[in-house]
């Protein structure tokens, strides 16, 4: 076997240029797979972060049915118990309480329907990104209870600016009575996401609770976890632990099914790309091995004539395929690592692009995983051997006398 390996290794260097070209093609294919995988993971993380960090949170707790009806009465049950348990959860980095209802906002010029949020500025600052995308004014800087933050598109519709007055109309819990309160616009944000920039208004939580008549209750607890991937699994026991007492805890994947679907398509595109790249690799290997085979027909005739069995010829061709594959894998790993490393340091600027209702706010950084350097090289090696079977079988079945005639 060792002799065959030595022979195969020397054979692939007989035509250095051809081996270099074939090896580079396979190596570039592998590097592309490694980089694409790193990019996909980076993009997935980026999109989840963009979707969850902007305002949603990585998970939320509501009263059962609230997400569907948004009824003001459906506040979270046993709020104090949940808060005290969340504070003890090691996986939870922070959480924030919110009051949420449909409402109407009116300015001297116009009127618009909105989602009216009562938030805790101190905790919300670390959980959502509204404070990071302030276009004008401040994010709840003072202590004024009538401060209100709205989106840039809504400000345009209402024709209001910083310091201008608006009136919010909501209906109260239990009675359904309409309540109106005047607020001053203290800040205007711009997410570049239409739904957020036109359809939301934020006030301090106590004021919203007062208007809605829900006492100290809330409709929503937004949660941020220590590890972003923790919330990705919908079957995580965390959700069932908090889906008790008539409440429900759900991950961002449930709250944003369209984003989850898009991420699913990512892996399909990676698979399609993999199939295309592996197809190119396959043609490269088959072409290389057949060229090498036809060039050495007489030689194969000689080794068959002197007693090499067909299985010996097959083994030799497969070893040559394996040797070519190892060279290509080394090249591909180095190339893939260097390309990925460059973009890990510089990032790729997709900021401002909106995908599945999620606007990307951060530079996209590919993520290097050790699996990329194990799974894909093994796949390339196994695939090379599989593809190499074809020329190996052809070589082992050729007529010896025919092969010996080739260069006579």
């Amino acid at each position, binding site marked *: 076997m060792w*002799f065959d390996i030595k*022979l195969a290794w*020397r*054979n692939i*260097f*007989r035509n250095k240029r051809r081996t270099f070209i074939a090896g580079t093609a396979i190596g570039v294919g592998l590097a592309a797979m490694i980089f694409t995988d790193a990019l996909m993971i980076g993009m997935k993380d980026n999109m989840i972060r963009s979707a969850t960090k902007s305002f949603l949170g990585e998970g939320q707790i509501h009263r059962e049915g609230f997400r569907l009806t948004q009824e003001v009465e459906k506040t979270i049950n046993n709020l104090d118990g949940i808060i005290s348990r969340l504070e003890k959860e090691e996986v939870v980095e922070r959480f924030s309480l919110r009051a949420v209802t449909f409402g109407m906002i009116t300015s001297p010029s116009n009127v618009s329907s909105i989602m009216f949020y009562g938030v805790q500025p101190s905790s919300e600052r670390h959980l959502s990104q509204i404070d990071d995308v302030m276009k004008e004014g401040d994010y709840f800087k003072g202590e004024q209870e009538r401060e209100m933050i709205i989106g840039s598109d809504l400000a345009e519709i209402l024709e209001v600016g910083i310091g201008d007055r608006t009136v919010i109309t909501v209906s109260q819990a239990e009675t359904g009575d309409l309540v109106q309160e005047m607020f001053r616009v203290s800040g205007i944000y711009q997410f570049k996401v239409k739904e957020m920039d036109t359809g939301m208004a934020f006030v301090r939580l106590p004021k919203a609770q007062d208007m809605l008549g829900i006492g100290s209750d809330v409709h929503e607890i937004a949660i941020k976890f220590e590890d972003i991937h923790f919330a990705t699994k919908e079957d995580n026991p965390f959700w069932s632990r908090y889906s008790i007492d008539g409440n429900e805890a759900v991950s961002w994947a449930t709250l944003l099914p369209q984003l989850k679907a898009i991420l699913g398509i990512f892996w399909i595109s990676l698979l399609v790309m993999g199939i295309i790249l592996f197809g190119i690799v396959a043609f490269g290997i088959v072409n290389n091995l057949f060229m090498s085979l036809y060039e050495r027909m*007489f*030689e194969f005739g*000689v*080794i*068959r*004539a*002197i*007693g*090499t*069995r*067909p299985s*010996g010829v097959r083994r030799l061709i497969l070893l040559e395929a394996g040797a070519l594959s190892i060279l290509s894998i080394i090249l591909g790993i180095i190339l893939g690592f260097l390309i990925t490393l460059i973009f890990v340091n510089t990032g790729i600027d997709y900021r401002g692009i909106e995908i599945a209702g999620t606007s990307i706010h951060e530079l996209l950084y590919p993520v290097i995983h050790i699996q990329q350097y194990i799974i894909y090289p093994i796949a390339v090696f196994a695939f090379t051997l599989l593809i190499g079977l074809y020329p190996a079988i052809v070589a082992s079945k050729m*007529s*010896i*006398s025919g092969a*010996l005639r080739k*260069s*006579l």
Partner: protein
Amino acid sequence: MENSGKEIIVTENVKKYYKEEDIVVKAVRGIDLTIESGEFAAVVGPSGSGKTTFLNVISGLDTPTEGKIWLSGKMLSEMSGKELSDLRRDRIGFIFQAYNLIPVLTVEENIEYVMLLQGVPKEKRHEKVVQILEEIGMKGMEKRFPPKISGGQQQRVAIARAMVSQPELILADEPTANLDQATGGELLDMMRGLNRKTGMTFLFSTHDRMVMERADRVITLKDGKIDKDDRKA
């Protein structure tokens, strides 16, 4: 060493037809021949007379269209592909025209190739390689690669490869075709000497007069049939 009288090759009405661009070529048209152990014989004839085809058929490199062939008492048509490979490995040594060595293997590796196939241990292989290189006058050239030695030296290595495992039969297809007269003559003398020393049977396919002059028996083929079978006294 003289002929032992043991039959190495026996052929009975061997025919070989093949198609070439829809035309049936009758390369061998019924040959009955017996080659005995220790013979130094040559199959001669003009190009297209069927010399190489006959050698291919009797060595199991090709199958006859008709007829029977016995090699060392074994009928080839009754053997599987694997058995034929093993038969060639253990009982036949092949010498082709020049440039039939594996260029990426050293002289030593080329010679030990057949022994590797036979599973001979490394020490034994090395010992035999050194011994045979001395016999063919190439001692000290073990680590050279074929492209770095002359055509005559390459053919010496091919002879060494064919003989190193001490097969019963050496088949040499135009072994002097690409060599100059002096080198060719020198190699033929060497093979003649080895034939006498070891008793191995040599069967040449050639139209080289030097081979005919040295052979004990000259079988002349014409249109795929034996035209003459001359034995030297």
